């Protein structure tokens, strides 16, 4: 037991060693750290701040939409608020949320490495993110921008009087930060796996991040170029997108969505990785169809590059081009279906428990199902004519990006919080929050499918009276959702001060990261792990449920990495 008082035996090997959090406390050591775990925490704090900024903007939007008239804000202010909401949430929260926090923290631990391949590049990516974030905040302070997060030309390049250039530099910098993160992950996963950690022993979380990194590295430069062209047109009046100077406004949409559709998969793929880890752990079972789930991540990443035109069915692009984009969009349904059915089948003959991370994961499943399936309406060209630019689209992408990605992010934070901070949070409050978020989310966004089909266009502060009922429902749901999101902020922070000390492996999970201390030492592992077991080897000896350690209070851990550790789990034997 590791909680033996130190004075009993000062030389005990159980004496608490310094961990990555407490080995030094100076600001300099935090701001100049190369430790992926500290950088992950820096990112966690930063993205949380931006989540709050974007969330406040969302609440302003919902309050304004309570009535059909623009009574809380002027039209101009409303436009700046929804633009701020989109830009902050997408570029500064959703894209970095899981990869830069959980991915940063966990990938080296999961593959048995000491750190990422390029620790200084990792730190640089955070600084670049902060510079981008500073631009975004300055743009807001100086009055904001009113282009929406999509920056469509020629409005953004020739007509808008907001801080377009400043905002674009904000997005540009955020993009480079994710390129650096992507490069770091790809090299790390290729080169730094521990002995025995073969590709097909990697946790699916790592596979998902590998696919995500490919998109980050291949897609982000395109949006960077596009945004620079926009700045060139706005500042230097080069005719690129403005038809009066010989440009093509729709060209911008092609270039923008070439990145921004794959960017949706940057937001959701890491979430799918998180869900695979949680479902396996709380079902006590290997993920059903491991290799199918792994390759479906790559398939989604690849297909994601060839569907951008489904955002443009009403722009007048060639009908045959549209058909290609439509059919490829339906193809994305296949790897998504593979994932969902494999997750569900994982429960079969497992030992299912419903701790808070599992509740978030199940919530993710429900919301991602609706989010993904409603994507079919929008891939269907004839129906998309009606739905394009309505609240149906708003509802759809919130189900995927908020319902899906944030549910997974919260699930991951709850799952690995003991590992990251060394503290246990209040499990009951976590369960209540998970249920509140699930209910609040559906109450907020489901009415938007209906009001969208009725014809309510996006980005309207003023709307016909007959839509008001659905907007009121939506705002009521948003209130519940906001409270739900605030709860983890309270009990997770509280756990830092009064939470129970977390053991190394509170959930009895089998990933390599649970072999490290909670919180891990600055160098992650005391000795290089040698992996001799498969991923998710929960049902050891071929009999499901053999490995059934208690989910809390298990203070033991597998300390040696020899061949026997794989077959001799540290938990208690079967039988409850």
């Amino acid at each position, binding site marked *: 037991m590791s909680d033996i008082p130190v004075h009993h035996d000062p030389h005990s090997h159980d004496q608490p060693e310094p961990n990555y959090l407490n080995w030094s406390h100076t600001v300099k050591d935090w701001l100049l750290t190369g430790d992926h775990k500290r950088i992950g925490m820096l990112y966690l704090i930063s993205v949380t701040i931006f989540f709050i900024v974007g969330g406040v903007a969302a609440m302003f939007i919902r309050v304004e939409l309570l009535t059909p008239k623009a009574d809380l804000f002027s*039209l*101009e202010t409303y*436009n700046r608020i929804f633009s701020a909401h989109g830009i902050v949430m997408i570029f500064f929260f959703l894209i970095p949320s899981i990869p830069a926090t959980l991915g940063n923290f966990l990938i080296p631990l999961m593959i048995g490495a000491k750190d990422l391949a390029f620790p200084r590049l990792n730190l640089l990516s955070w600084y670049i993110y902060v510079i981008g974030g500073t631009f975004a905040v300055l743009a807001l302070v100086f009055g904001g921008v*009113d*282009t*929406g997060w999509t920056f*469509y030309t*020629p*409005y953004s390049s020739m*007509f808008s009087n907001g801080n377009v250039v400043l905002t674009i530099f904000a997005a540009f910098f955020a993009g480079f930060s994710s390129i650096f993160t992507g490069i770091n992950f790809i090299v790390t996963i290729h080169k730094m796996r521990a002995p025995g950690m073969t590709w097909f022993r990697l946790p699916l979380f790592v596979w998902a991040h590998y696919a995500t990194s490919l998109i980050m590295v291949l897609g982000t430069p395109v949006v960077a170029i596009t945004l620079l062209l926009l700045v060139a047109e706005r500042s230097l009046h080069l005719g690129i997108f403005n*038809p*009066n100077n010989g440009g093509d406004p729709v060209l911008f949409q092609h270039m923008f969505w070439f990145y921004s559709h794959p960017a949706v998969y940057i937001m959701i793929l890491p979430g799918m990785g998180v869900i695979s880890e949680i479902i396996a752990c709380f079902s*006590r079972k290997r993920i*059903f*169809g*491991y290799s199918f789930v792994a390759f479906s991540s790559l398939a989604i990443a690849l297909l994601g590059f060839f569907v951008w035109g489904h955002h443009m*069915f*009403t*722009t*007048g692009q060639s*009908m045959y081009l549209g058909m290609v984009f*439509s*059919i490829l969009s*339906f193809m994305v349904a*296949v790897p998504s*279906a593979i994932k969902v*059915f494999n997750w*569900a*089948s994982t*429960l*079969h*003959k*497992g*030992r*299912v428990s419903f701790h808070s991370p599992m509740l978030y994961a*199940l919530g993710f*499943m429900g919301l991602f*199902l609706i989010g993904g*399936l*409603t994507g*079919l309406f929008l*891939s*269907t*060209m*004839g129906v*998309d*004519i009606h739905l*394009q*630019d309505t609240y149906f689209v708003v509802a759809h992408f919130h189900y995927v990006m908020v319902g899906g990605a944030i549910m997974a992010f919260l699930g991951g934070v709850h799952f690995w919080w003991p590992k990251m901070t060394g503290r246990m949070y209040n499990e009951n409050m976590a369960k209540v929050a998970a249920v509140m978020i699930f209910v609040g989310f559906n109450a907020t966004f489901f009415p938007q499918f*209906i009001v969208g089909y*009725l*014809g309510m*266009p*996006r*980005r309207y502060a003023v*709307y*016909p009276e*007959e839509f008001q*009922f659905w907007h009121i429902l939506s705002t009521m749901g948003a209130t519940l959702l906001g409270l739900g999101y605030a709860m983890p902020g309270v009990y997770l922070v509280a756990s830092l001060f009064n939470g129970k000390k977390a053991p190394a492996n509170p959930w009895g999970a089998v990933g390599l990261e649970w072999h490290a201390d909670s919180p891990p030492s600055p160098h992650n592992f005391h000795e290089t792990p040698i992996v001799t077991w498969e991923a998710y080897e929960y*049902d050891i000896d071929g009999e499901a449920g053999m490995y059934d350690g208690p989910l809390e209070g298990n203070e033991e851990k597998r300390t040696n990495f020899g061949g026997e550790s794989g077959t001799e789990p540290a938990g208690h034997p079967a039988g409850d």
Partner: protein
Amino acid sequence: MFDKISFFPEQASTFANEVDVLYLTIWGLTIFFSALVVVMMLILGIRYRRHNKIDRTHPVHTHHGLELAWSVIPLILGLMIFAWGAKLYADAYKVPENAEEVFVIGKQWMWHLQHSNGIRENNELHVPVGRPFKLTMISQDVIHSFFIPAFRVKRDVLPGHYSSAWFTATKPGKYHLFCAEYCGNEHSRMVGSVYVMTPEDFQRWQDLKGTAGGELKNPVVKKTLADEGFEIFQSVGCSNCHVAEDTARAPSLNGIYGKKRQMQNGEVLLADRDYMRSNILTPNDKITAGYEATMPTYQGSLTEEQVNSLTAYMKTLGTPDEPKPAGGEIKVRAGKVVNPPPANSTKPATGTTTGGRL
């Protein structure tokens, strides 16, 4: 507020029901698959809950038959929905030959509409039931999108390039017209109404509606778009060079609409609406083979409305096979003209010449 709760917009065009049927079909699939997965997880989650004593021997870790099933079944269903949706899309944007044309000009933040018979409307569109209408649309500034939910019709309205959509209204009533593409401050006020009328009501409305600024006038002097185009053709100086026959200075415009044109650089272009527009506004970008770049630029001095009228006029100048004379033969061309416009009119009949933006 509560007496108006509905789940579907009104069905007021021939598309509406077709779109709704497909929409409901996809909802059917959505509900079926969501329920399937949720029920599957509930049953498995409860049956195999942690403390339930139940046979867990021989767990399955992978099953190729199942993987194949849940890949192929969604794929087949998806392809079916794709084909259905693509068919609807093709119908929605393939304009029938006999459709009557309405010009739509979008600008921050209003809709300006012109019927081919010269009637103008702002933020309102009157159409009869049962007759196909084609919308030919262009924007004066940013991208807008013309959206009539009750018709299930939407098309982006772009600057610098014509786009089109069509519909046949089926049910008299008043319906929403929205701008669906974000276009700046007053985006949510760039709205209007579509009035679908019985053919008799529509006829009465047309008879009462004048041409001057869209105000009701009686009696009415009908001046079609082509008539206005003719006046502009004379007043801005087109007729100085473009005459009935090809000359050394300029090609004749008789019968060129819809024809392939050979350019100086060897390109062959179709003289469609976009071609006409760009050759009026920026004529020196594309020079017809055999001519010099002598025509002045009209960008900024002609409005989109005036360009529309000019094109309407030029369309009437014969067909590719049967060129009809231009200029003084106006009476022959437009038998319906009541008062032939004066040939030496000094200013255009409509719009302004002050600049590209109204």
